[in-house]
């Protein structure tokens, strides 16, 4: 229904924990804002390094989300819709990057895609291609840590969706690909969007795996979180706070903008 009577009275049983939760999430932000060196802000924000890092962050996180959508949505579909043998093990493996401390994740990536790694060694010997210390490596690290979020969110949505629509599409002669594209995917769009948001945000904030696997070189691999971490390690937590606020501002703006649009369209 396009319009409905909105019940504005909210049960206290929901409101109280919600308020508590919002406090936990929002107060630290307030702390950051209170502590931010507002005077130095303009000079920090307009410095070349910061702008370069911001651009790099936005580009890599967006590309990584694209890759995660292309690879992750099919994985979620396999998990939710097929009788693949070993499906539950696959589901477990796919959530591994969630628990792996990101630095260990970076080491693991190096062991596989590094110059002496399982796959990377072959790539290097055959094509002379080496992934680490490139922007592609940043994207790969981000895909590794962020795609599981997308997969889990999309699988949840697929399980909520009514499968009978897919049966109807099949009787109408649709291939499973057509059914997926025209019936299943539109139905789970809110879940895909939620997953993409999680994935993008996680990729944007990704630090540990990136710094280990891709390194940290201005312009090619140093994203905003790395820039912030450098600042913290250099004892410059003011700069780190400004950079974090910048990331927050950018992502919140983009997320609010996109979501309003999606929700408006949905």
């Amino acid at each position, binding site marked *: *229904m*396009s319009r409905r009577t909105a019940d504005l009275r909210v049960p206290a049983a929901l409101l109280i924990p919600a308020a508590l939760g919002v406090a936990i999430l929002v107060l630290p932000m307030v702390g950051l804002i209170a502590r931010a060196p507002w005077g130095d802000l303009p000079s920090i924000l307009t410095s070349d390094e910061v702008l370069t890092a911001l651009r790099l962050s936005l580009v890599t996180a967006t590309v990584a989300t694209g890759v995660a959508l292309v690879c992750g949505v099919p994985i979620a579909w396999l998990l939710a819709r097929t009788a693949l043998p070993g499906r539950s093990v696959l589901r477990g493996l796919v959530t591994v990057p969630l628990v792996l401390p990101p630095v260990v994740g970076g080491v693991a990536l190096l062991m596989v895609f590094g110059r002496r790694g399982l796959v990377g060694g072959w790539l290097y010997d055959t094509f002379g291609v080496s992934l680490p210390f490139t922007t592609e490596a940043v994207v790969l690290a981000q895909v590794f840590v962020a795609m599981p979020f997308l997969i889990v969110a999309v699988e949840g949505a697929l399980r909520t969706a*009514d499968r*009978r*629509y897919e*049966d*109807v*599409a*099949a*009787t*109408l*002669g*649709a*291939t*499973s690909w*057509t059914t997926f594209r*025209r*019936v299943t995917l*539109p*139905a789970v*769009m809110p879940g895909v969007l939620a997953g993409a948001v999680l994935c993008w945000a996680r990729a944007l904030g990704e630090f540990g795996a990136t710094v280990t696997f891709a390194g940290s070189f201005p312009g090619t691999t140093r994203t905003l979180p790395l820039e912030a971490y450098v600042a913290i390690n250099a004892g410059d937590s003011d700069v780190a706070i400004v950079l974090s606020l910048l990331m927050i501002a950018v992502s919140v703006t983009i997320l609010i903008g996109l979501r309003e649009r999606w929700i408006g369209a949905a």
Partner: protein
Amino acid sequence: MSLDADLTLRRGDLELRAGFAVAPGEVVALLGPNGAGKSTALQLLAGILPLDAGRVELDGVTLDDPAAGVHVRPRDRRVGMVVQDYLLFPKMSVLENVAFGLRSRGLPRDRARAEARDWLVRMGLDGYERRRPGELSGGQAQRVALARALIVEPRLLLLDEPLAALDAGTRPAVRAELRRHLGGYDGCTLVVTHDPLEAMVLGDRVVVLERGRVVQHGEPAEVARRPRTDYVARLVGLNLLTGTASGRTAQLPSGAVVALAHDATGPVHIAFPPVAVTLSPRRPDGSARNAWPLVIADLEAHGDLVRVTADGAVPVLADVTPLAVADLGLEPGGQVWASVKASEISVYPA
């Protein structure tokens, strides 16, 4: 094209074990009480549910044969289906819903849409092309579902109560459209319906399913005249008794005896219409040789007549005029005699 189906499935407390055939171009009306397994049978034929055992053959091609491990996927069956709750794709427009099957079969978008538009017009839904299913009324949604299934010219058409939500004004028109379409259609059609009129109008043949079994089948008129189960009898508006005949009488399990107009032997069905029943306050002494004392269970207005449900050794339904109700002072719990002339009774082997 012809359908040959032998369906066996156990699901919950349903034990489906039904075999039937549909000739090319034939329309079979599938009737049966709620929970008989009608929708389940259609799902099996569409290939959405797997058979436990049995066999489905369409046009000489085996679609299902669990014993041989054969199962043709729904999308390769060319069946068209309209389900009870429509299941219109919620994110597509009405036009896209109808065009979906053609698009899936590879038709270019424009041609698919043009044809879908034609179908919408035929269904009386001109101007609804761009609506979303959520913005349709129940009857409108049903017509869209029908158009979506018919447009692909399936070899087997499965319609699950396709007209149940239509209003009295649209229903004859859509029914006529459907009949016209089915008339020129050489595939096999199964229509599930609860409306006996619809079964008669649409069906070349009737198959009655009860508790998962086929209990009666045949020409609509034959089924209507000679019901074999209580359900069918109620459906076509006849009283049905079962007994054992010998000569001109038949004995019911309750011990009551029914006089017949012709000789018969062995187990028989005895049918007579409610209007043939006369009610009187005392034992009638006219020519009607069948007269039973009964207790009135229920009265219900019913067009120009009142339908009286009466219980006793020979439970009957009787249609009488409102005037008779008033004259006889009929009311639930009251005593009454019911009589039927033997000549009004039709008798056939059980």
